[in-house]
């Protein structure tokens, strides 16, 4: 997104403001998802350390949770891009 930012500062101040808002929004959004993904993998490590034989079963749930959490950032990104383009 730094590209958008660079292009926008050259183009005009209103666009720059929008670009900064977009970057901040996505940054804050990825903060939450980062915590969530850390939680998932942390719990997975703990679970496997306690019961290594459950690894196979847990792996499916782990990736499911990972993708569901990670997608949240992209909802933010798409929302931000929509706001950037439309407003």
């Amino acid at each position, binding site marked *: 997104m*730094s*590209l958008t930012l660079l292009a926008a500062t050259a183009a005009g101040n209103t666009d720059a403001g929008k670009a900064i808002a977009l970057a901040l929004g996505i940054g804050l959004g990825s903060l939450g998802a980062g915590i969530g993904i850390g939680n998932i993998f942390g719990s997975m490590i703990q679970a496997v350390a306690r019961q290594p034989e459950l690894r196979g079963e847990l792996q499916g749930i782990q*990736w*499911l949770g*990972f*993708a569901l959490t990670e*997608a949240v950032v*992209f909802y933010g990104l798409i929302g931000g891009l929509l706001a950037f383009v439309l407003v």
Partner: protein
Amino acid sequence: MLRRLTSLVLFGLLTLPSAALAAGEEFNPEHDFEVGEWIPIHLGPLDLSINKAVAYLFLGTLVTIGLGLALMRVKVGSKNEPDRKQAVGEMVYEIAQTQVAEQGLPSKAIGRWFPYVASLMLFIWVLNIISFVPLPLSNERFDLFGVELPTLALYAATSSISVTLALAFMTFVFTHFEGLRYNGPVKYFKSWIPEVPKAMYPLIIPLEILGQFMRLVSLSVRLYANMLAGHMLILTFIGLIFVLGNLYIAPFVIGAATLFYLFEVVIVVSIQAFIFAALSAIYIGTAIEPEH
């Protein structure tokens, strides 16, 4: 000596894009996601033109069929030990069966819906993986000895919202069709409402109905945004060379782009295909056998 020579040649290659730099065209990664219109087909208000995304879908279909034929049609008992092809085929089948179908679908529906979720998984995986192979299917042209050829480019059919929405819509239709068929309308729609005090109903019922449609959005946007962001990230990093007009940052940005490329190819591509199929199976499964 050889290593030093290779690095010298590689560094020399860095001066090649200077011609492109001199062209002075504004770099815009969004251009790579325009599908264009190759063979226009318009049926009234419907636009059924063959474009870049459709070409990738055709290619993906062919590769999926080819993969299925190559991996699954194995002569049983011809050899004592299973060869590599058979091992890969069995691995794919096992993931589709144990991780996707059996997690979501009730056992009475596996026979009917296993083919759907398994082909969904394989098809999306193929679409995702061919999007990371540079193919001459782009809208831009370059001149090679007087012949106009399309440039090699990365493009994912799944980075177009229409494609993922169509895939999600199939799951949406099948979910409600199967729910109605197995449970009947009254029992099925009642199963949407969780057990809450009656006073909460005016609040809960609209939310649950909205939730059913949000599944459509979340299923399609998850795949679409993942692929779009992945491609955009790689293009943006490479494009930094041209935006900043500085060749000496090339080793860093190409390194970063390669890292993201590997991350996408190794993890994201498979995870997204798996998630789409697994969630489809879970949605169809919970419609067939509601929890309460």
